[in-house]
């Protein structure tokens, strides 16, 4: 069975698909986490919210509408979170941040239950992507290919913005020393606010993309949080390269681990994480500095 090429292609695509979903999620977190040095454990909850928003809006205006609405809805929540909590916690150190956002997880978990109920919702796959395509002799769901493409596209856009533009340098300068950045005429507050919103929007997008693939439940954010954190820590905080590398590693280890060594699958990934942290305490591709 394992000698069959089609099997490997199929699993390879599965790995890639999982990687890209995680990438969409972790890139938002890494942007916030790495650039603002803000530890946002509630990122998973934003993802869940994105899924709910997409499912709700999708029911009214269709999948594509939902896909569009979700990032904005989550970014809007991001605005509230930023103004109420994050702005004041930016300098408080990782422990306080971990705890505030840990608290937010539970608050948002219960809020989703109050608003949408405890039962699972679903979001249908759009008609356009409902079929399957054949690549390399393997039939593969079109929607999953869409997820892969979307992940790659977002990666490209972000790499361009952060690496090649002045904005990227401004953000990093603000991270290093916000007072000095301000003394150089950079509106640090506004910039971070935007960064945070973009990070939230990306979480919302990830949720919207995941909704038709998975079930939409209140605890979906909690479930995805640990894998996302692992991705970021393996890759290295704050670097786009790290987010993509971490996602790919996670996707491959998880997918092939589950198939080839089912009894060790989940320990495998934690072991890998521990090994990375021992050998490279700041992850594989830490941000410069």
């Amino acid at each position, binding site marked *: 069975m394992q000698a069959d090429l089609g*099997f490997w292609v199929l699993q390879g695509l599965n790995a890639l698909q999982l990687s890209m979903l995680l990438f969409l999620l972790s890139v938002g977190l890494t942007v916030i986490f790495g650039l603002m040095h803000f530890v946002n454990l509630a990122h998973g909850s934003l993802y869940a919210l994105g899924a709910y928003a997409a499912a709700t809006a999708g029911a009214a205006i269709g999948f594509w509408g939902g896909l569009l609405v979700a990032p904005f809805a989550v970014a809007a929540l991001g605005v509230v979170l930023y103004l109420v909590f994050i702005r004041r916690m930016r300098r408080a150190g990782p422990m306080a941040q971990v705890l505030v956002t840990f608290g937010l997880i539970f608050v948002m978990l219960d809020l989703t239950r109050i608003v949408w109920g405890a039962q699972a919702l*679903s979001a249908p796959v759009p008609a356009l992507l409902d079929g399957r395509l054949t690549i390399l002799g393997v039939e593969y769901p079109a929607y999953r290919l869409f997820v892969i493409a979307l992940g790659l596209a977002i990666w490209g856009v972000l790499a361009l913005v952060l690496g090649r533009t002045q904005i990227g340098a401004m953000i990093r300068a603000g991270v290093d020393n916000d007072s000095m950045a301000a003394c150089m005429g950079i509106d640090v507050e506004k910039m971070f606010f935007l960064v945070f919103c973009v990070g939230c929007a990306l979480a919302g997008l990830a949720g919207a993309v995941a909704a038709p693939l*998975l079930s939409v439940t209140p605890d979906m954010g909690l479930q995805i949080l640990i894998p996302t954190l692992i991705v970021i820590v393996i890759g290295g905080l704050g670097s786009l390269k790290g987010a993509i590398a971490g996602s790919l590693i996670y996707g491959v280890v998880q997918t*092939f681990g*589950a198939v080839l060594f089912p009894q060790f699958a989940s320990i495998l990934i934690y072991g890998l994480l521990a090994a990375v942290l021992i050998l490279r305490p700041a992850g594989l591709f830490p941000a410069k500095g």
Partner: protein
Amino acid sequence: QAEDIKVGLLLPFSGVYAALGEEIETGFRLGLDTFGEGSGASFEIVREDSEASPPVGLAKTRKLVMQDKVDVMAGVVSSGVLGAIRDVVDGAKVPLIVANAGNDEATGEACSPWITRMSFSNQQVNRPMGKYLVDQGITKVFTIGADYAAGQQMIGAFAEAFKAAGGEIVGQEFTPFQKTQDFGPFLAKAKSSGAQAVYAFYAGGEAISFVKQYDSFGMKDALPLYGAGFLTSQLYVDAQGRAAEGVVTALHYVPTIDNEANRQFVEAFKVKAGHLPSEYAVHGYDAARALVEAVKSGATDRETLGAALQKTSFDGPRGATAIDPATNNIVQPIYVYQIVAGEGGAQTQKVLSQLPAEADPVNGCEMALIN
């Protein structure tokens, strides 16, 4: 002289199983309202949140038993909680009506005269499907399920019966419980296993993801999907949508069962909750009815209630249900059903076959009768 019965309702109202807790509570309260009238007793409910966590469930049980001094307990969704509190209720001699947790031991080696189960047991739901599949001409099956005690018992019971009937298990996969969101890798494995069908057990969010992903890989045509009925339970079928159509599973209750008691129950439940009842709702409903019947038979305190509960028997929404005196487990018919498109495009359960009620093997249970 109106009797006052204090009921401790132990259910998860927060955490992953909160939806089930809600469903059971609604059913339980509906049951008390429906049947309680003529009983001459008033029922006081003390509800406690088990958070689906064994230590919490245990602490709450001790509180209900020692401090609130309840006459009877009902509820318990997760088998872990049931395992944890078993010794306490048994030791304190408090009757407990189990309204969900299906682990086989609870009415097997770890059975207790004080624990009566009005829901199901894991093997009970799956065993009949072994023979049923062979009867349908399916002899090679790939099984897949969540990797925890219930998953193993469900799949195990099916596999045993299936093999006994002459079938062959060509592949078996247990996926990390509540940690698997992407079933793609396992589905690819099933596809290349050479099986004629897949038999699955999942519940909750996993059931929804699994059925949807099974469909998206286009596997339903080549490899029909069978499973324990929780897979396409009423609670999830709306979210699964068209992906669930054609899946054949077996369960002790679906809202489309055709009998008078069920029609009344479905009507009343819909009025109360705004949606169709699931099997969890009927667990709560029947647990309440068992309690009321016990009171009607003259029981008033822990001991008499416990004794009366062991003799429960009535025709309810699931058909003829009774407690097996050998194990205190429920004996009930099992319904094989398929998800089909109903009127208005919504999915509904079409009962294909009603398999006769069959008591579980005693399995090391030495049941003492109270009194």
